[in-house]
């Protein structure tokens, strides 16, 4: 029964989303953002959307996080809120 897996991954997704927004350090946000994308990719793989999961893994978790970290290195890690 794959029903519980779906629920567990969904709770992780929402947890990562809220954490990525409320964390005070931008590099922390970058890592949580990567984790959020990876959890979404897991969720879609469970839901049978294999191509979308592959794209999200390579594009969302992979390259977006690299751009994020690169931009944070070019600017600043400091956030006020």
């Amino acid at each position, binding site marked *: 029964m794959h029903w519980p897996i779906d629920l567990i991954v969904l709770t992780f997704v929402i947890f990562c*989303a809220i954490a990525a*927004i409320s964390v005070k350090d931008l590099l922390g946000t970058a890592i949580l953002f990567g984790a959020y994308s990876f959890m979404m990719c897991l*969720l879609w793989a469970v*839901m049978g959307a294999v191509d979308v999961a592959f794209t999200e893994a390579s594009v*969302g978790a992979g390259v*977006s996080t690299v751009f994020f970290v690169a*931009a*944070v290195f070019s600017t*600043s890690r400091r*956030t006020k809120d």
Partner: protein
Amino acid sequence: MTDLLALIVAKYNYWLYVILMMIGLYAMIAKNNLIKKLVGMNIFQTAIILFYVSIGYKRDATIPIIQSAHGGNDALAAIIHAADYINPLPHVLMLTAIVVSVATFGVAMALAVRIYQRYQTLEEDEIRMRLVDIGQEK
């Protein structure tokens, strides 16, 4: 009680997509740091992709790749039951949406770097203060 559980089982996926979208929308509007707003934007877009993918899902159906036609022998490939395979159309649409969201994310990151080069900060209120100073100088 049981119909409530059935209702939840039937619809929880859509409620969660709405919650995710609202997290993204809230972050985009209320957060002060520009890059935090960008994270909110990306969460907002991935929530819509989750909604599309959950439209196409069929219970106990396999992924939309037809194995039987591998050899190309058309006789065997004739009998394909649509109910066995997941609906491929939302997946196609979402491949486009993911690529569009990454492209927008890359351009927005480039803009954030340009703004930091000019104002040495990414906080919305600090930028507005420096804008006012520039306004007085001109």
